[in-house]
């Protein structure tokens, strides 16, 4: 459904993303990982339309979408979250999501339907859907859920989740990871999950793509990638990556390693 070819983004003389190509099947979850500054957020922003590519193409459901503004990307069916949550603070939680449902579908649905879809999205992520709950009461985990619900309310076919777990504790991370699996299962939404915490991600994603200095250095099944010497070299130092579901409580260790 998504096919990226030779995608390149330069900022002046600096090449943030260098000829990256990859493709995504309907219903897949792709983990996009890499150390800070590796180009994953840039890649993400290129697909979401926040940035225009310097070279290369992004094809989504048969249309070239490179350089289209974020609004257009949203209307085509690409939902995104932000690394640092950006709630609409002057709206209630429900209104935050309802406005996304309404405008995400380009005002083609009734207001009643928008509010219904907002409630659905909030139920999916376990946030209160009573009309008055303010955004102020939400903690870091709640704000992440709000981001997710807002992106889901636009009824995306492709969900771009940006480092959705930063700032969460162990338990919350597990929950959030399960939620992405659930979203894929229930709604058949294709997901690109950008993350630098590897542990939990490895358990949920179908495939992993690793970036370093703007280049793709590995792509494949989580297990394979975790053993790839280049990945271990650039991303984790010399330690081997432990996969969360492989050994009982190892998820915590892996998370810790990845952040170090």
């Amino acid at each position: 459904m998504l096919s990226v070819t030779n995608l390149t983004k330069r900022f002046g003389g600096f090449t943030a993303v260098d000829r990256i190509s990859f493709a995504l099947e309907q219903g897949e979850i792709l983990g996009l990982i890499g150390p800070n500054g590796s180009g994953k957020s840039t890649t993400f922003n290129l697909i979401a339309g926040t940035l225009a590519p310097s070279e290369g193409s992004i094809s989504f459901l048969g249309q070239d979408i490179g350089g289209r503004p974020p609004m257009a990307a949203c209307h085509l069916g690409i939902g995104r979250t932000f690394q640092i949550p950006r709630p609409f603070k002057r709206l209630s939680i429900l209104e935050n999501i309802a406005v996304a449902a309404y405008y995400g579908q380009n005002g083609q649905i009734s207001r009643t339907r928008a509010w219904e879809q907002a409630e659905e999205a909030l139920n999916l992520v376990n946030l209160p859907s009573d009309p008055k709950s303010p955004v102020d009461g939400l903690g870091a985990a709640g704000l992440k859920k709000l981001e997710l619900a807002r992106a889901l309310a636009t009824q995306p076919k492709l969900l771009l989740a940006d480092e959705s777990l930063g700032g969460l504790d162990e338990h919350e991370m597990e929950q959030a990871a399960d939620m992405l699996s659930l979203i894929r299962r229930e709604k058949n939404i294709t997901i690109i999950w950008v993350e630098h915490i590897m542990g939990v991600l490895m358990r949920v994603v179908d495939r992993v793509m690793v970036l370093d200095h703007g280049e793709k250095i590995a792509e494949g099944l989580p297990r394979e990638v975790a053993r790839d010497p280049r990945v271990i070299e650039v991303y984790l130092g010399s330690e081997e990556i432990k996969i969360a579901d492989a050994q009982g409580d190892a998820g915590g260790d892996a998370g810790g390693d990845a952040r170090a």
Partner: protein
Amino acid sequence: MNRLLALIGVLALASIPLLDIGNYYLHLLITILIWGFIYTSWSIMGRFGLVSLGHGAFLGIGAYTVTMLWNQIGLSPWLGLPIGLGLSALVAVVIGYPCFRFRIVGHYFALVTLALSEVVRLTIVALRDNTGGSLGMTPRSADTANSLYALQFADKETFFYIALVVWLFGLWVWKKVDRSMSRYALEAISEEEDAAASVGINVTRTKLTITVLSAVLTALGGVLYAQYQLYINPETVSGIAISLQIVFAVIAGGMYVQLGPTVGAVFTLMLAESLRIMVGHDVHGLDGTIYGLLLVLFIIFMPKGILGGLLSWWEKRQSPPPSAKPAPAE
């Protein structure tokens, strides 16, 4: 219940001229209605963080276009009105589009609008052959004392009703916007433009629409002011001073509630009148100083304004768990 209260309120207002309260008080009321309408027009966009320090520009465009067309080619204000409103819409687009397209927001947007109001004032002064320059201008008197064609009325009662209708129209538009989906989009944009765009909101178009609406209404206020006062000059309908007065009044009254701007009009008028009566014009600049001081006090201690503050205080008393949202209008 609220509808009934509103109806009673409107009827009460409409019956005031029957009470024979005298021209001075009627004049004050008309002034409050006209400025209440203008302040409401400003806050239609101002409440969404689109702080314009240049609404004097739209007042001036409305007032001068209609008066000049009447004086120079004898075009009835009824025909001049759509031209004046159209011109102000055009100026709003010319200023607004580049600002919104290239994301000139917050203080920078305020500065652009501030410049706009001065540009309009200086233009009026520079075209002194046609506008009378700093001396101002007077709409040519109609042939009869009361002329619907010239929109000039010798008695204040007629004008009171015109002002009342226009003011009610302003409140109606405010309510329409408040209940529309655009309101949510505008609230979203005012918080997080990127996030708003990411959920499919057309940020540029949404901002431009509300700006044009606000500008056109403000220009209508300018026309009304010119037809009532039958005298305009660049200082009273354009430039920085009047633009800032609009902002001050709205902040004082409360820009997030429907009647807040009108309360602002009552407050500023009473302030100006009492200053005028108590100290006269002897102490130069005193009113400006007091305005400035009050503005600072309001922003610090009463950010929701008089009415907004009162309403949220009342809401808190009514319902023990305080709501974090700004109080909705009646």
